[in-house]
């Protein structure tokens, strides 16, 4: 063993490798992304690592490997599990031979997600065991145990950290390479009575799964990571039940206090019922401190009913803990103080600070998406139009002054939302914007649907040749894999033509006049037509020298600022000025300046 300073996600990857991991697949998504990236970086050649096109593909790949006796891990964020839920639900019945951990990172807040869904629900829904770590060290240790449980019980298991565990760093104890388990997969053994799902098999499997989970509930009551910390004040009949990062906030809040008993639940499913019964005896009131949904709270209410225990269970359902958003050290300390009847230090009246500038996230300086949105906006000026967005950096196209994202729902949804709006409002010019990685992940079927069902819309693919939002992961259009291979790129244009889109034009959005003309020409056609705006992510290319504003020519009209909203242009003494540390010299502003006052960059034509 030795000490290392690791991010939670890195600790999970390193723990999985120490547990003999053979294959890891996933689809990027905050806060889960660094797990697979760390696995790829730590690969000594014995591991297969893949960014799959989406979570469903990743989970099926992991299942195939585990059928062979490999230890596999599949990584995704919480909404990714919605995409992978079809194979997940069936795989729960089939089971696995090698250990298989499905890592799903939840995002209380939400900080960078569409929903605050709680994967612990998916555990009980799919009947799969679930592990919920509280710290970086625990994540490292627990993922190894999760593989053991998975293999012992022949079932995939869910491993569900949340953002603050995923992205927290800590100096932790890790194994030396000599201590790693080595797993040599036996290979696929044919047995259609085991690997082919049929109603009869599912019926029998359902019986076995219920028996297994009843057993696991008992096993988990003795599992060391589910535990009760005794009260410092043994006469206290109040107690706290908690989990995950909230457990650590709880322990911080109880430091140096006459602390009540604490139940830590690390396996929300199957719930450690016997341990909970032991915890609840001699208690009058229990406060459940959870993030996302009141899972522990409902379990304890159920157990109180089942065992007829006269304990009042408080938490989200009773509004003793906030129902949405993430907990913090301060919110948990306040919830506990109120529950215990402790006085909180009164807030000292402080001098009111000056109004603080807000800093909403914006498209980067030089981002080609800004040019793409602006080109469509200019081309459609005065025409009735709707612009459906999708998931990625380009969702930020909704911000002023671009204001070019009218809808955003989930990965790939924009294509068929556009189709739906067009069916009800046929006089509207309908546009769907989708990024290259999202296109491969889940917009291709949408495009087929739109073509076959005679939609009238323009599909705009914003191709910056990377998965930018999550930190530049490769995808089928990049020609690179996570194993370091250079492979044939899958062409977005050929895919679109192949599914029946007759007009597919490709244009560089930073050549603004050409781009605007292209949008006018293509959008005027009937049926489904596509424009691929191709220009690399500004973060990945070496920028050109910054733009220069000719102060003699600049009239201070601010058109550059008011139309583009680029962080590379700021106001200085009443006139626009270039922020040299940010400007990439993309040349877009020089093309919108009506007075030809911005130069110093290569002319776009």
């Amino acid at each position, binding site marked *: 063993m030795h000490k290392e300073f690791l991010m939670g996600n890195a600790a999970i990857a390193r723990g999985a490798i120490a547990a003999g991991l053979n294959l890891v697949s996933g689809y990027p998504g905050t806060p889960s992304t660094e797990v697979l990236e760390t696995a790829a970086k730590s690969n000594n050649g014995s591991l297969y690592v893949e960014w799959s096109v989406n979570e469903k593909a990743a989970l099926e790949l992991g299942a195939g490997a585990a059928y062979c006796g490999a230890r596999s891990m599949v990584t995704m964020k919480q909404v990714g599990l919605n995409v992978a839920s079809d194979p997940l639900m069936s795989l729960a019945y089939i089971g696995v031979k090698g250990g298989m951990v499905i890592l799903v990172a939840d995002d209380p807040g939400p900080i960078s997600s569409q929903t605050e869904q709680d994967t612990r629900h998916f555990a009980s829904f799919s009947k799969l065991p679930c592990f919920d770590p509280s710290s970086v060290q625990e994540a490292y240790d627990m993922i190894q145990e999760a593989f053991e449980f998975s293999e012992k019980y022949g079932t995939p298991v869910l491993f569900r950290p949340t953002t603050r565990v995923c992205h927290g760093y800590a100096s932790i104890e890790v194994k030396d390479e000599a201590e790693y388990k080595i797993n040599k997969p036996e290979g696929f053994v044919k047995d259609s009575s085991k690997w082919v799902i049929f109603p009869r098999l599912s019926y029998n499997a359902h019986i076995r799964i219920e028996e297994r989970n009843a057993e696991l509930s008992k096993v988990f009551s003795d599992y060391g990571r589910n535990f009760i910390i005794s009260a410092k004040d043994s006469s206290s009949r109040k107690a706290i039940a908690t989990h995950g990062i909230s457990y650590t906030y709880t322990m911080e809040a109880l430091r140096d206090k006459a602390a009540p008993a604490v139940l830590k639940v690390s396996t929300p499913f199957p719930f450690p019922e016997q341990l909970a019964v032991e915890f609840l005896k001699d208690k009058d009131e229990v406060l459940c401190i959870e993030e996302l949904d009141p899972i522990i709270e409902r379990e304890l209410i159920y157990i109180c009913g089942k065992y007829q225990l006269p304990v009042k269970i408080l938490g989200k359902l009773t509004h003793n803990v906030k129902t949405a958003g993430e907990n913090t050290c301060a919110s948990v300390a306040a919830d506990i103080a109120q529950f215990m009847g402790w006085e909180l230090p009164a807030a000292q009246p402080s001098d009111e600070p000056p109004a603080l500038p807000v800093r909403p*996230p914006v498209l980067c300086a030089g981002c080609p998406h800004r040019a793409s949105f602006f080109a469509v906006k200019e081309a459609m000026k005065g025409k009735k139009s709707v612009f459906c967005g999708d998931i990625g950096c380009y969702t930020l196209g909704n911000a002023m002054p671009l204001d070019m994202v009218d809808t955003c729902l989930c990965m790939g949804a924009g294509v068929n939302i556009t189709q739906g709006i067009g069916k009800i409002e046929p006089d509207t010019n309908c546009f769907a914007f989708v990024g290259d990685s999202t296109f491969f992940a889940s917009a291709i079927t949408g495009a087929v649907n739109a073509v076959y069902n005679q939609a009238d819309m323009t599909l705009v693919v914003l191709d910056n040749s990377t998965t930018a939002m999550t930190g530049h992961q490769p995808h089928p259009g990049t020609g690179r894999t996570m194993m370091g291979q250079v492979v044939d790129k899958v062409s977005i244009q050929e895919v679109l033509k192949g599914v029946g889109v007759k007009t597919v034009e490709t244009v560089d959005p930073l050549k603004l006049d050409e781009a605007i003309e292209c949008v006018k020409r293509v959008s005027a056609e009937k049926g489904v037509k596509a424009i691929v705006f191709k220009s690399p992510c500004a973060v990945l290319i070496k920028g050109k020298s910054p733009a220069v504003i000719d102060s003699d020519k600049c009239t201070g009209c601010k058109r550059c*600022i008011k139309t583009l909203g680029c962080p590379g242009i700021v106001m200085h003494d009443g006139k626009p000025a270039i922020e040299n540390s940010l400007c990439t010299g993309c040349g877009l502003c020089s093309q919108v300046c009506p007075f030809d006052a911005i130069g110093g960059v290569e002319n776009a034509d």
Partner: protein
Amino acid sequence: MQTNILICGVGGQGIVLASKLIAATAMEHEIPVMSAETIGMAQKGGSVFSFLRLGEDLYCPMFPEKSADLIIGFEPAEAVRMLPFLKDGGQIVVNTHPIMPVTATLKGSDYTGLEMIDYLKKNVAKAAFIDGESACRDIGSPKVLNMIMLGEAVRRGVLPFTIDDIEATMIRTVKPQFAELNSKALRYNK
């Protein structure tokens, strides 16, 4: 004995590396360390922070309001935003050079940073201010702000190690061609 540090600023200012260097130096001294920082969408021009804790018996990397022994503010308004986290008697080290957000540019706001610095001077007894921009100019690189800030923070005596310790970690961490420039920035003292 625990030391709580909060580093705050705007995405792209090198906050993460500063935080990593403190953590790595703590590891060298066998001091347990935890940290948590902004990752994801907010990094794109948004407010970013790094919570850093050194010492025994830590449960989580975050700490509540009124707990920081030291706030290193890379931008004046961001220092004010995070000031509620400063413990009574805690210290701040602040870069006086403001960064104008795009929204302020669009709305023609007159944010100059000076109002923030006045506020900090009025409300914090132990405050050090550095003109980060002119310091970077003196050293000859816009990329060394984080080392300038870190150097000043170490000189405040809140961290359990010296400039030499941080410098040794830095030399091990950064690309060799940047070591000399960063050393200069760490030791910049005006």
